[in-house]
């Protein structure tokens, strides 16, 4: 599945990358991301996750071809 990150999260991960592991939920995805970069844990709690452009909660079930966006706290205006 494809992961896209924005703003400050680009200091933690590439802007866009693939996850090859078998992932079934946002919770599992979060664990894999923390393994890739342990520092992500500090900012994870304030991020929202979106699948196919809709916000989802941590129990959301992921499919292999889903496109996931990780949305850090807004700072528009």
């Amino acid at each position, binding site marked *: 599945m494809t992961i896209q990150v924005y703003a400050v999260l680009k200091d933690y991960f590439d802007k866009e990358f693939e996850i090859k592991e078998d992932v079934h939920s946002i919770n599992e995805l979060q664990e894999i991301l923390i393994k890739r970069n342990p520092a992500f844990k500090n900012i994870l709690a304030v991020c929202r996750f*979106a699948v196919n452009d809709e916000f989802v909660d941590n129990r959301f079930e992921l499919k292999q071809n889903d496109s996931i966006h990780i949305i850090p706290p807004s700072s528009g*205006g």
Partner: protein
Amino acid sequence: MTVFTSYHPAVEDNENYLSSLPIDILALLASAHHPKAGAVVLFSGETRNDSHGKEVAYLEYEAQEKMANKMIAEILKSALEKWNLNIAIAIHRTGKVSISESAVVVITASAHRSEAYMANRYIIDRIKHEAPIWKCEYFTDGTKEWGGNCNCQKITGDPNKHIYEFENKEK
């Protein structure tokens, strides 16, 4: 970028509330007159030359454009219904925004000024806290910082719960 009370829903879906080019405030204002509106309020959020005690060179905005457009459309629609507005307009910049340029413009028009003021504040607050748009400050000393984040979750404990200025009647 404009939502009228009598808009066609199919038109709204294609609206773009983001601009990579400077916002033409006067043209927007010119489009905000309505025969039933006795009050038009325009807010322009502009780039300041200082932040965190440092001199700002310019800002750069990034957005998850599809989600930001959808969210701003929903915020405008909600404001139109809540305050029975005649017109609600919002447009937010992406890319590089220089000092004194508008990063965001919100215009509201209603029969009387009270509704136009309140709705305008509601719209800008919700855009700032909820829309997936981010600012990066570039300083004259060569450093940069992703900044001005919505920090509400530190108080509310939930990234989806915000503390809005428009809800605080004392301010």
